[in-house]
């Protein structure tokens, strides 16, 4: 029951925030013109797409992230059973992490993390 207050805080925050975003769309006058639909570019002609070209390096980092992110998942079952597995389990996990670190080192040294 003590969580009810927190829930209420969430509720009020949601209400206020929602109202601030929602009310203008209901009340404010809207007259769309071709000029208004253009992205803001200091009155000049459009130079690039509004969302911009997104750099390929983002995807590289994302790919690296997802791999190392998931490898961590394989550690969880071991962590739950650390004591029953004992030293052999610890050793096996060290080998696993060692291989993982080798891959990480390779990625790092090969410039996979270079931003430019």
């Amino acid at each position, binding site marked *: 029951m003590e969580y009810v207050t927190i829930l209420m805080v969430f509720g009020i925050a949601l209400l206020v925030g929602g109202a601030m975003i929602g009310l203008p769309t209901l009340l404010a006058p809207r007259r769309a013109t071709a000029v208004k639909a253009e992205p803001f570019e200091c009155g000049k002609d459009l130079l690039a797409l509004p969302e911009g070209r997104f750099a390929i390096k983002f995807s590289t980092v994302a790919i690296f992230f*997802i791999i190392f992110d*998931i490898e961590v998942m*394989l550690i969880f079952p071991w962590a739950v059973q650390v004591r029953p597995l004992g030293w052999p389990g610890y050793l096996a996990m060290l080998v696993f992490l060692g291989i993982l670190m080798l891959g990480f080192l390779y990625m790092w040294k090969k410039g996979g993390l270079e931003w430019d």
Partner: protein
Amino acid sequence: MGLQPYLILAACLFAIGLFGVLTRRNAIGILLGIELMLNAVNINLVAFARYAADPAGLIFTLFTISITVAEVALGLAIVILIFRVRLTVEADHLDLLKG
């Protein structure tokens, strides 16, 4: 609840993924279909493991998840490679090697 609903769910998911792979022309779309197929496998494995009270299935699920992720990462990397060389991700446009 018995085992059957889970198996049916997994079979449906697998079929949806299969449909996606066969009908999509976009490499990313095909990849998504393959993902669905592999996730159907995970549902199956978890359901069987729970039903038989055998942890081996759960461990296998962890392996399939990590392998799946490795596949996705590699797939995206290959898509980027193709995009850089060719500027398309449509599987249909890949017709240099024709039989």
